[in-house]
């Protein structure tokens, strides 16, 4: 599923990485715990999180995450957006809760990080 389609599905606002909206996303992870994100294979995935921190961006970058979606309408501070830009990491913000965001993406046939649904 294209990141642009995900943005529409989640009614999201794009905060960074407009140039990468054509990326293909197949797998999703949802977590607020840094080491849980690193425990699985996250390459090229969409990370759904409520943590709008520098660490979330760095963790995502280390894990090779393809894009981050902040849930519950959260908007990160400017320095977080700047860091994501520096890493070429798309950031979007969705008004959906974590549960609803996951549900909508699951309904679009996206899988979990390990390929399971």
């Amino acid at each position, binding site marked *: 599923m294209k990141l642009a389609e995900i943005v529409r599905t989640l009614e999201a606002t794009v905060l960074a990485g407009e140039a990468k909206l054509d990326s293909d996303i197949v797998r999703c992870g949802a977590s607020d*715990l*840094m*080491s849980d994100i690193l425990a699985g294979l996250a390459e090229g995935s969409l990370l759904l999180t409520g943590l709008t921190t520098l*660490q979330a961006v*760095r*963790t995502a970058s280390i894990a090779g995450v393809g894009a981050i979606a902040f849930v519950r309408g959260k908007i990160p501070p400017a320095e977080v957006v700047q860091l994501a830009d520096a890493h070429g990491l798309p950031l979007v913000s969705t008004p959906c809760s974590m549960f609803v965001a996951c549900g909508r993406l699951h309904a679009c046939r996206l899988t979990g990080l390990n390929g399971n649904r």
Partner: protein
Amino acid sequence: MSGLRKDFFIRARDFIHAGEASIRIQHLLKTMQFDPHLIRRIAVCSYEGEMNVVMHGGDGRLHMELESDVLKLDISDAGPGIPDIELAMRPGYSTASDEQREMGFGAGMGLPNMKKNADDMTIESQPGRGTRVRMRFFLNEGG
């Protein structure tokens, strides 16, 4: 490429800069065109180890050595040390403070993630004497 050494200072409790050393190592390995899977394994180990120092250790150092057939990470700190290493290795076990947990730390997967991704790992630590974690990654032909 062999005999490359890099040292990074890790400042305790500095969550603004925490992880930057590992990001730099990841970037370096990308420019050297290492295998992406290997880069991710090394980056995860480096980052988890670096974050452990920031959260739990005193100031510390991340030392990287790249030889022709192995990459070594040596992460040491002047922190309080680990009283029970076996307990610390247990998935889910964490000594993160409440404030750190609010930042998303405390999953208790740091050391298990490092052990899983490194080809080998040793931990030397004694209460009051700091901690040293050494990891090795064997390089296939072509990096």
